[in-house]
């Protein structure tokens, strides 16, 4: 088991390394440089060159890359070119916002997808099952930012139940502001989960061990909860863990729709402003988080399902 974890962690390293490489060079391919963006169109060439030199941007690329790696090794994320404050400071608060969106989304997804998936499976082919499946199929096809806008129109503008945008002050206020964005993403990823859950429960109910359990005389309820669900929930939970990656991508757009001061919105703005350190750091953190979460999900999965461990 320890070996499995060690092996997966070791595999992570070249991937993260590859990411930093891709990031670094991709960013510097963007036409335009931070100095000219910062100084504006009317800046003289000398002023631009001077600022570039000051920011260390006129060094050859591989030198810059080595500096970058050295900084990373000391967990120094650099200084934002645009705001002139340490990136870690800039990102810290914003990441908190983004991660809280993710957290609320996970909770909402669990509350929506799991009960509906279980019900749909247990009452297969009933009206409920068909209704759930149809609604979710349609929902899967709706672009998430459109759903966000719809929710704002309906719940905020028409009904006045939730704020139109912003993050709020204080924990409860935060939760109130986060509800609609989280709901939007939850609705976007629930369909896949409901479908997976339904199919894995149906599969479990067909399995030999369930037949054995019934033959032993167990009550149906014990059969379902103790045997079928226990096995069927594992793949769905894993899927939930794995969809966190896509979830984090979803927050990027939705932060713009709901005007949340999150890392995703910062990332998009920084790409436009050519604020390399911020873009690098934010993307690297996102990517590393996704890889780590996938790794944790895999480990938890292998923990819950011994067959995977010894495959």
């Amino acid at each position, binding site marked *: 088991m320890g070996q499995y974890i060690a092996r997966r962690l070791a595999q992570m390293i070249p991937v993260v390394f590859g990411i930093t490489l891709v990031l670094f060079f991709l960013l510097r*391919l963007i036409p335009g440089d931070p100095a000219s963006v910062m100084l504006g169109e009317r800046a003289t060439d000398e002023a631009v060159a001077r600022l570039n030199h000051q920011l260390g941007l006129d060094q050859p690329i591989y030198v810059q890359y080595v500096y970058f790696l050295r900084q990373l090794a000391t967990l120094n994320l650099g200084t934002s070119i645009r705001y002139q404050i340490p990136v870690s400071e800039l990102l810290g608060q914003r990441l908190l916002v983004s991660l809280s969106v993710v957290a609320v989304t996970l909770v909402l997804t669990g509350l929506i997808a799991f009960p509906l998936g279980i019900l749909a499976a247990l009452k297969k082919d009933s009206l409920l099952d068909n209704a759930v499946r149809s609604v979710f199929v349609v929902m899967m096809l709706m672009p998430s930012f459109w759903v966000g*806008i719809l929710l704002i129109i309906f719940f905020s*503008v028409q009904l006045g139940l939730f704020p*139109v945008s912003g993050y709020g002050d204080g924990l409860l206020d935060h939760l109130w502001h986060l509800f609609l964005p989280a709901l939007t993403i939850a609705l976007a990823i629930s369909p896949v989960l409901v479908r997976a859950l339904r199919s894995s429960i149906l599969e479990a109910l067909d399995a030999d061990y369930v037949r054995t359990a019934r033959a032993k005389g167990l009550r149906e309820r014990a059969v379902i909860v103790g045997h079928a669900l226990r096995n069927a929930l594992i793949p769905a939970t894993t899927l939930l863990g794995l969809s966190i990656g896509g979830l984090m*991508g979803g927050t*990027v757009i939705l932060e713009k729709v709901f005007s949340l001061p999150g890392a995703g919105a910062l990332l998009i703005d920084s*790409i436009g402003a050519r604020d390399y350190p911020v873009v690098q750091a934010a993307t690297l953190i996102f*990517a590393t988080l996704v890889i780590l979460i996938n790794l944790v999900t895999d480990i938890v999965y292998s923990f819950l399902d011994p067959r995977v461990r010894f495959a």
Partner: protein
Amino acid sequence: MATLETPTTPAIAVGERAVRRWPGRWARSRNLLIGLGIIIALVLVAICAPLLTPYQPQEQNYDVTLQTPSLQHLFGTDNFGRDILTRVIYGARIDLRVGVIAVIAPFVLGLVLGCAAGYFGGWIDTVVMRCVDIVQAFPFIVIVVAIVAVLGPGLNNMYIAVALTAWIVYARLIRGEILVVKHKEFVEAARVIGMTDLRIIRRYVLPNVITSSIVYAMADIALYIGLAAALSFLGLGAKPPEPEWGAMITEGRAYITTAWWMSVFPGLAMVVTGIGLSLVGDGLADTLRPGAG
């Protein structure tokens, strides 16, 4: 139960299962028919746009700005007085084209790489899968935005960005299926009689593994229409005054409290397109699968 399976023999079941399957099969291919119906209708609407509406998509009329849906303007008007129904219809031309073009490159690229990785294994497999890991670690939208930022705004660059990032799904799908199929008896038999790898792949392996990718491609078309919309939302996609659905939703956002119809109807168009494509995908899955009921 070891049987010599071949890829083209339909599995004929006897007795009860066959009887129960017949209406089932017919019902499933009904999905295909309905889906195709929707898509064909959309394509026709897009092509015959000038015949369906008296207005032009860019035709501004300051006398009728922000009108609610009415008999003269079935979907209402926007802040420039442009008829939204007209723009949605003309937008179909753009979005349908975008979706289809966007899906071709990743499909082909993923197919080739996934086949190579799955069939030949070894270092090819390792390299391809590591590339998949790296691309996959970036949130999709971030990497697309970054690539489009590098290349410049516009839908053409979106195609490139999508081609570079979306192939991984097809590669993984194909590779997974090939890993199973390549051990089947008919592949071993083909190898034994001396068929070249390329022929084996083309004749036996591909027809069996390609179904799930085609089905996925249908969903992807809808996804890329959504992606183009998202990029327009960020200002990186279609430029105004193009009647691209995503750009329209974005324009409508500023008027969300007063003119909800500006954002709602283009979105509905996307949903209908998505439903059609999804039905086609499901229908294809059931009719293309060799041997399945």
